[in-house]
């Protein structure tokens, strides 16, 4: 243990030092009455502050940053409305296991519980959507609380942590000690997997004829890309992903089958039903991925590898459970498998079946008959975008089209609000991602409905020199809701029309960004090339037909076998 350092300073200053000690290089936030001392201390902080226009976006930016850096992202807000505005972003991070540290101001200690101006019990509000929420009651507690927060947020199954600091605790000047080591006795994340279970899993994989790998978000969170690829190539198993796992495995790889689920790839949804053994890695068998829990995996052996013991048996009972870090467990499996497998089984009925399904569905799923469709647009985007570019999405049809028609080539370069499904997430998250990786292009595939929710982040993108590309699939509709109303409610449309308001090119220009309208494939190609060269954010407003549906579709409450292909 290093010598603890101690000096006299304010709680707010101690917060800055604590954040610096954690290696924070940027925070996203908005000031207010109850966090003014923090903002005063920020003047002298060594890291960058990015001013947002709405706190929800600050949380999404911190989240986007965290997902790309694979370390905690930090956001700041004041008490009351500032804090509650963060909640959607915190809940989004929680649903997708993203390490976000949210630091809120609070009314002074003696005002807590008095319904003071801008007082909210944010600890209570945040409880169900954070891994933990702290409220330091005196300035000397701050360094320990910050250290614990980062540890809890980043370790085990990552997730958001809230730190709520009363204003007088920020202001209090006193002797403050900075610990190098902390202990959280009730928190014991399991990292090393049980080797006997890993051995059993390896035996089961070796004895199965039709193995399949289902890769989830845990692969991305642990950065187990090369391990996943190694195991797939050793046992020659087709790899499907969950939507959150999209991009865990290069989607141009010969064994890649793409995401399964409600709007999964048809061949992926089909092949998983025909497997005799599923290796689920860092996945949680969500309803959107597997359809009906009771039908999924019937008659198959399921091996479930996850860092969160509470995920084992939550949605699906499994044959072999391995609790531990995905990367270290896969590494062990690869070692064990390499000893047994001397010759790769590159030609067998199972791999032939895989090819057959891909060919069948590529011929049998037709594109929507227009010159410019979401599918064609996304394929064009893939063609023109460098492979290491980062792509995120908004929520709805734009998101599902991306899942279907945009292949992620470089692992870990794609993310989306997959768990909570937060409209308005993609654009601020893309700005956060750009702050984490300013050297690559970052694209938000958006719909008009979602983009409208957080478009004021254009100000942040322009002023903070974080140019991203908004690839706006504009069907002038809340498209996914419209699709459901078309499919399940006899075309009785209600509350879905956007009526060409606003004009997104003008919106972009109003913020000093680049706005380009594209109504044909030619215009689209020019727009993408223009955007890739632009020094400011570009909104490509792409006109698509409001009746273009997302297919295939596994209707809610049905199983993957009931997939509608729309052919």
């Amino acid at each position, binding site marked *: 243990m290093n010598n603890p350092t101690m000096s006299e300073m304010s709680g707010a200053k101690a917060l800055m030092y604590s954040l610096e000690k954690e290696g924070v290089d940027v925070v996203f936030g908005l000031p207010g009455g109850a966090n003014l001392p923090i903002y005063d201390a920020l003047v002298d902080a060594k890291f960058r502050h990015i001013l947002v226009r709405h706190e929800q976006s600050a949380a999404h930016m911190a989240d986007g940053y965290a997902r790309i850096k694979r370390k905690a992202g930090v956001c700041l807000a004041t008490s009351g409305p500032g804090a509650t505005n963060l909640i959607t972003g915190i809940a989004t991070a929680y649903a997708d296991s993203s390490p976000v540290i949210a630091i809120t101001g609070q009314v002074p200690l003696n005002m807590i519980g008095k319904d003071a101006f801008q007082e909210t019990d944010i*600890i*209570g509000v945040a*409880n*169900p959507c954070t*891994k*933990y929420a702290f409220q330091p009651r005196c300035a000397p507690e701050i360094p320990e609380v910050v250290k614990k927060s980062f540890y*809890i947020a980043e370790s085990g199954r990552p997730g958001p942590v809230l730190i709520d600091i009363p204003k007088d605790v920020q202001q209090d000047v006193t002797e403050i000690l900075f610990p190098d080591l902390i202990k*959280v*006795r*009730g*928190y014991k994340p399991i990292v090393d997997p049980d080797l006997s279970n890993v051995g059993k899993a390896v035996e089961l994989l070796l004895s199965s004829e039709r193995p399949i790998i289902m890769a989830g978000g845990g692969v991305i969170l642990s950065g187990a890309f090369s391990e996943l690829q190694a195991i797939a190539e050793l046992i020659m198993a087709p790899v499907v992903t969950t939507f959150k796992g999209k991009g865990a495995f290069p989607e141009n790889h010969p064994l890649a089958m793409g995401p399964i689920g409600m709007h999964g790839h048809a061949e992926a949804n089909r092949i998983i039903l025909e497997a005799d053994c599923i290796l689920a890695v860092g996945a949680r068998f969500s309803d959107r991925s597997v359809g009906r829990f009771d039908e999924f995996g019937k008659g198959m052996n399921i091996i479930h590898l996850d860092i*969160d*013991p*509470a995920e*084992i*048996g*939550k949605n699906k009972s499994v044959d072999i459970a391995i609790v531990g870090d995905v990367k270290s467990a896969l590494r062990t499996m690869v070692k064990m498998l390499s000893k047994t497998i001397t010759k790769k089984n590159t030609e067998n009925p199972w791999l032939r079946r895989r090819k057959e399904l891909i060919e069948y569905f590529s011929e049998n799923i037709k594109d929507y008959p227009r010159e410019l469709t979401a599918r064609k647009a996304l394929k064009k985007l893939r063609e023109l975008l460098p492979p290491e570019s980062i792509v995120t999405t908004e929520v709805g049809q734009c998101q599902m089209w991306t899942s279907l028609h945009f292949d992620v080539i470089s692992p870990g370069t794609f993310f989306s609000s997959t768990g909570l499904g937060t409209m308005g997430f993609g654009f601020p998250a893309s700005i956060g991602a750009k702050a984490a990786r300013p050297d690559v292009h970052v694209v938000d595939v958006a719909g008009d409905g979602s983009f409208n929710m957080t478009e004021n982040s254009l100000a942040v993108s322009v002023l903070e020199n974080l140019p991203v590309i908004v690839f706006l699939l504009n069907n002038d509709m809340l498209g996914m809701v419209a699709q459901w109303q078309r499919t399940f409610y006899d075309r009785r449309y209600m509350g879905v029309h956007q009526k060409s308001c606003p004009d997104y090119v003008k919106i972009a220009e109003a913020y000093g960004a680049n706005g380009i309208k594209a109504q044909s494939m030619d215009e689209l190609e020019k727009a993408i090339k223009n955007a890739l060269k632009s020094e400011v954010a570009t909104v490509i407003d792409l006109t698509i037909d409001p009746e273009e549906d997302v297919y295939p579709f596994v209707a809610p409450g049905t199983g993957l076998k009931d997939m509608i292909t729309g052919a």
Partner: protein
Amino acid sequence: MSSKENKPKPFYIISSLVENKPGVLFRITNLFRARNFNIESITVGITEKPDLSRMTITTRIDEAILDQLVKQLRKLIDIVEVEILDVNNTVYRELALIKIKAKDFTNRNEIINFANVFRANILDIGIESVTVEVIGTPDKIDAFKNLILQYDIVEMARTGVSALQRGE
């Protein structure tokens, strides 16, 4: 806090050691609420270590859900230890105070006799009521309560279960 479902579910005692600080009870009960699990009883008290409290929760849920519940509880950072106690290898007790309407001498005598059989104590006698203290397993308290239902219960207070695993 009774369950609306007809079929009785198995009875479990969950024993946990938790941080002795504000907000811990809220986090634990909020987890039950969020997943719609019913708490039948809950007791909290300090332990031999001043910074740890023992929280004993009894609940009636399906076994599969129980497993999930314990895993979720274990994830809570304020819970240091949690285990399901094997009812057959556990000593557990609850205390109930029951104020029973007793209009006359005969009533009072009958209630006192019942109380003696159950080794319950009479804590208070008024002109129209008798207050009894019963200590035992929840089943024993239920049995006593059912027996004296014929006299009308004015008020009842139960502590919930405290439990410890038997010694080796």
